[in-house]
């Protein structure tokens, strides 16, 4: 019941905020498109609720399919774009493949000794929604394609429903302890791959929504790590320490679900506001929006801070729970758990560092510095309700701080609760301290804090332009180069024109595609499509061949009949 409530909250919160945002977001759309959006939007919300409250397996499956279909309608909203068409296709395939895997999982679940097979099917089925690598391919395609309120709902509330499914159908774990180790390690492995892979690919993206989509992969990875650690701890029987690890990491994962829902929802709405006001999501063409859209910018910054898991916001508390569980695991003495603990600690830390880098880049390139295009320079603040929607979600995440403490108080007293309380207090202290220092500074130089006086120092160069500022691509280039073996960025140089002494228009363009799509799924699909196309020769139109086929088949059948 509590998990039901926990997964209902994001749907309600993000759904309401996204709806509010959408009323303004869709303002410019043609009138006759609006009913389509709202129909699919409401259907998506309704089917998500149906998923949560489905009474049985079949009704769950039906609601699950309905959720996929109705959200596909949202992805396909801008139906004339070619990229949207591709995204819709990929998304639909992901949904359908997921449903197929779930059907199989359900079948496996019926036979008592096939629990692990059922679990792996469910991992594939739910993983296609959650976005475990390499099943995450639809996320970076569908999110940029969908209207922002839809992406917010899909990323914030819909994706984690995969975890809801896993919890609902595979979490009476105590009954199947022998499998918990394998299941837990699988989740940890997927979580580590998802978290690090997701954030690594988020880093070099120039499309803001693509960056956010990859970051969703990362966050789902973090949640999976928490759940996996909980499972592994659960499989080591006995001892209050193990149950403490279990409770802490489990709670941490669930708290992270909430945080991700609220904050990522808000970030997608922010991205939507930017798209609406500037017409682009290309970070290399944005910049300087903090001055032009102060509310959107401030909220985006705060939400990003929360999602990067930094104190004092609630994003940190969820990760802290998992960290604490990781520390406990490390000292538990059970070799497997120690190894799992170290892995989770290192991976979570690395992810945290990279996430901070990615969000710094997103904020810096989008909101700070000088605008890099006319569209960005001409942008103005959105209508009030658009940023109020984001503000509401942000406040929700702040309100989650006492909520988190309450949850932990209820389930995990002892280390967890004390740690969490300290962290929350310290968070408050940080805010107060900052306020004090800002006050001090204002006191020391009242004038400077109010009015800017001079251009940016640029080494004595007199006319700093936006073209000279660090771009989003440049900012992440060192990290992207460092991980080039995994990211495989495509770089192409646009050679300069004109005289070598006064070159113009030269540019270095770097694009980082999703490796799972470009390196695995696309070749796989192409391979099969080619092979199938070759097989089309059988239907070449030759009547002789057709009849020969019939003849041969009859002969083979006769042989089979005589043989059997």
């Amino acid at each position: 019941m509590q998990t039901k409530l926990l997964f209902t909250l994001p749907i309600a919160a993000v759904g309401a905020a996204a709806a509010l945002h959408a009323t303004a977001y869709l303002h410019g759309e043609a009138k006759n498109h609006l009913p389509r959006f709202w129909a699919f939007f409401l259907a998506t919300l309704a089917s998500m609720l149906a998923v949560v409250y489905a009474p049985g397996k079949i009704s769950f499956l039906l609601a699950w399919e309905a959720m996929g279909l109705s959200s596909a309608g949202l992805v396909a909203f801008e139906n004339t774009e070619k990229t949207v068409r591709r995204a819709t296709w990929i998304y639909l395939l992901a949904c359908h493949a997921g449903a197929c895997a779930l059907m199989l999982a359900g079948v496996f679940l019926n036979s008592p000794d096939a629990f692990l097979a059922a679990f792996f099917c469910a991992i594939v089925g739910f993983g296609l929604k959650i976005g475990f690598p390499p099943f995450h391919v639809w996320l970076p395609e569908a999110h940029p394609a969908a209207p922002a309120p839809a992406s917010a709902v899909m990323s914030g509330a819909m994706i984690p429903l995969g975890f809801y499914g896993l919890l609902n159908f595979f979490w009476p774990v105590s009954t199947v302890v022998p499998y918990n180790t394998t299941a837990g390690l699988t989740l940890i492995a997927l979580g580590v791959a998802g978290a690090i892979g997701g954030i690594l690919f988020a880093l070099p993206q120039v499309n803001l929504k693509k960056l956010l989509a990859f970051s969703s992969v990362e966050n789902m990875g973090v949640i999976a790590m928490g759940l996996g650690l909980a499972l592994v701890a659960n499989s080591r029987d006995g001892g209050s320490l193990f149950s403490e690890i279990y409770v802490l990491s489990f709670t941490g994962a669930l708290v992270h679900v909430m945080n991700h829902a609220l904050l990522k929802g808000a970030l997608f709405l922010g991205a939507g506001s930017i798209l609406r006001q500037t017409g682009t999501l290309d970070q290399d063409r944005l910049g300087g929006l903090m001055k032009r859209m102060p509310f959107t910018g401030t909220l985006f910054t705060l939400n990003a801070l929360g999602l990067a898991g930094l104190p004092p916001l609630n994003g940190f508390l969820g990760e802290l729970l998992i960290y604490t569980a990781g520390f406990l695991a490390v000292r538990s003495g059970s070799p497997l758990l120690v190894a799992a603990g170290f892995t989770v600690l290192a991976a979570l830390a690395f992810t945290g560092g990279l996430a901070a880098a990615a969000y710094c880049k997103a904020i810096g390139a989008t909101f700070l510095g000088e605008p890099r295009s006319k569209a960005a320079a001409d942008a103005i603040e959105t209508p009030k309700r658009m940023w109020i929607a984001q503000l509401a979600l942000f406040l929700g995440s702040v309100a989650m701080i006492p909520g988190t403490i309450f949850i932990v108080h209820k389930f995990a007293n002892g280390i967890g609760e004390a740690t969490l309380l300290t962290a929350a207090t310290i968070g408050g202290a940080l805010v107060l301290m900052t306020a004090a220092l800002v006050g001090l500074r204002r006191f020391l130089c009242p004038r400077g804090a109010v009015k800017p006086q001079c251009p940016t120092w640029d080494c004595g160069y007199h006319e700093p332009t936006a073209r000279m500022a660090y771009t989003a691509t440049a900012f992440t280039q060192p990290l992207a180069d460092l991980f080039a073996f995994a990211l495989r960025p495509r770089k192409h140089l646009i050679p300069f024109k004109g005289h070598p002494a006064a070159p113009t228009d030269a540019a270095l363009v770097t694009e980082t595609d999703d490796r799972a799509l470009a390196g695995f799924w696309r070749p796989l699909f192409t391979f099969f499509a080619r092979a199938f196309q070759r097989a089309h020769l059988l239907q070449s139109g030759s009547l002789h061949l057709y009849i020969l086929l019939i003849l041969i088949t009859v002969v083979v059948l006769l042989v089979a009949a005589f043989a059997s």
Partner: protein
Amino acid sequence: MNILTFLLAALLAPLLPGIVNQTKAFFAGRRGPGLFRLYFDLAKLMRKSCPRSTTSTWLFDIAPSVSLAATAIAAMLFPWGPGQGTFAHASAALFFYLLGTGRFFTVLGALDTGSAFEGMGASREVQFSALVEPIVFVILGFLVCLSGDVNLPGMLGDYDGGAWTHHAFSLILIAVAFFTILLCENCRVPFDDPETHLELTMIHEAMILDNAGPDLAFILYGAALKFELLAAFLVAMLVPKLSIGPEAKTVVLFGGILATAVLVGIVESVIARMRFLKTPQVLLGTLMVATLGAVLYILF
């Protein structure tokens, strides 16, 4: 008592860059700027105004304050001793994540100016810190194993001296790893050279090119405090429970901090800054060293 040691630490912080610089001057055969140079600098800066770029926004205004506040709060968490710290249940993760918050805002403040140099510095900063994070947490995991405690005050030095006789090798590996982190995080040679004054070659200094007055003072003081914090962390984790009582440990702690500063000075005197491209490789090596230390401890 705790408050007193914290205040002592806060007062002591600006001394450390002085010690480093004096050590370097000693090795170079110069007279040096003096041990208390930073105190004078801070006092001077606090009286100045802070001009600000027309490009920048409120983020630039609050970045130094947030950064210093985060470092200061982290310093409050640290068990300066004697006895348990003020926050007995402060997590080590919280400690390092507070530093992370500070860095987040420093980087945003740098990007806020729209300057290419500051962007470059910020880019390098986030790159190196992302690589440092996993090392830090492997070391923390090791400390949890060593002390059996998951909180920062318990984790630091709350273990038997016997560990040094049985696991000296692991401890040394971990110490080396943490010292490397200390150099990297505080932008010291060989990772960064705060004294080249060439914008292209710096990390931290490049990020604060546009800051002046009290802002700069905040930043400089914050950097010194962070240096002290990490040095203290290093010392505290190496010193086990002492039989002569917690007061003695506090004395050892502060002595150790000063010694670390001297050590940093020596390191800066004998090696040169390496190329930025080499840094990831070194950090990867450090991760290996830390992991090796942890693994050896667990296995033997």
